[in-house]
């Protein structure tokens, strides 16, 4: 008679559970780290856009184009986009886990969250990295001042 030994012998030490990446742990750490960074990034963004100089009145296409011509602001906005979107999505996932008891509905909502976040991340990254501050044939009045040399 053959029997599978599935029971541990007495006094066998606890075996470390084998697993890949501990998503729950890294998710938890991500929320804290990104939260701290976002506080700095968001208030920096609001300060530069709304408080410095003429404040909100100078925001137009030229202002945004000027910012996005500078690699510093491209990196800044990319960080803001990725950190905030993933932070928000993970928060939504948590809320779905808390309130949706039906496994199927939960799965559908999780997939919808993942898909919408992926689309927004790709679109946002595309805009930030391929943005042309001096579109050809644009009214010189509307574009940034440094475009005169190019156009």
């Amino acid at each position, binding site marked *: 008679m053959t029997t599978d030994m599935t029971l541990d012998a007495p006094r066998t030490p*606890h075996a470390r559970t084998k697993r890949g990446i*501990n998503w729950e*742990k890294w998710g938890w750490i991500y929320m804290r780290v990104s939260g701290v960074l976002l506080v700095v990034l968001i208030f920096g963004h609001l300060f530069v856009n709304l408080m410095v100089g003429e404040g909100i009145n100078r925001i137009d296409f030229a202002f945004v184009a000027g910012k996005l011509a500078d690699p510093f602001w491209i990196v800044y906005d990319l960080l803001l986009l990725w950190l905030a979107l993933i932070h928000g999505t993970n928060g939504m996932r*948590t809320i779905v886990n*808390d309130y949706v008891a039906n496994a199927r509905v939960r799965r559908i909502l999780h997939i919808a969250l993942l898909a919408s976040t992926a689309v927004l991340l790709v679109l946002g990254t595309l805009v930030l990295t391929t943005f042309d501050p001096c579109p050809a044939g644009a009214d010189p009045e509307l574009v940034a001042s440094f475009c005169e040399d190019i156009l």
Partner: protein
Amino acid sequence: MATAPAAEVGAVQEFTVTVIVRRFDPEVDAEPYWQDFDVPMYSTDRVLDALHKIKWEQDGTLSFRRSCAHGICGSDAMRINGRNRLACKTLIKDLDITKPIYIEAIKGLPLEKDLIVDMEPFFASYRQVQPFLQASSKPEKERLQSIEERARFDDTTKCILCAACTSSCPVFWTDGQYFGPAAIVNAHRFIFDSRDEAAQVRLDILNDKEGVWRCRTTFNCSEACPRGIEVTKAISEVKAAILRGKP
């Protein structure tokens, strides 16, 4: 001899309290229902006395657990006016008796009858964290510990396993696989005990998908604990210990 004054100063007041209990008999009822009782009470009485009066004088079928009736056995945790409390530690005078007192079983555990729930899932996760001292040394006499080392885990030694915290936790309500605050509190009690040698094992167990990371720091557990344990703080200390890799 002076005659007894009509209204003696400090006399115990008597009044009628409406108690609404969520009843359920699995052999008769398909769904739980609310039943109200008018109970004559004194200001010195507790909610447990109200339940006793109902069971002894009005309706003998009312079922609830209680043992010591003095806040240490952890048998009579229930949801009183929407908050998890021990019936034996909740005084009638601390409640607003102009309104009815609502009493129901604790949430998140299978309801068996009236105010009694199946505690087995709760104790199963308690057993999983290995809540016992594990040490390889065999000292001649006692295992020595400094006052500071003892103070490190003093708060979590106070747990009476009443399940008030775990059954107030919104994560536990929707995710029955979550260890729950009580199991983590009892793991904390041994993780930070200088005499214990299996802290790493417990940290590994609680680093699980359904472990401490499920905690959302809503503080429901700390608010519910009848022993005043800072449950959320204890859970956060276990999280920090897992990240450090040692207690």
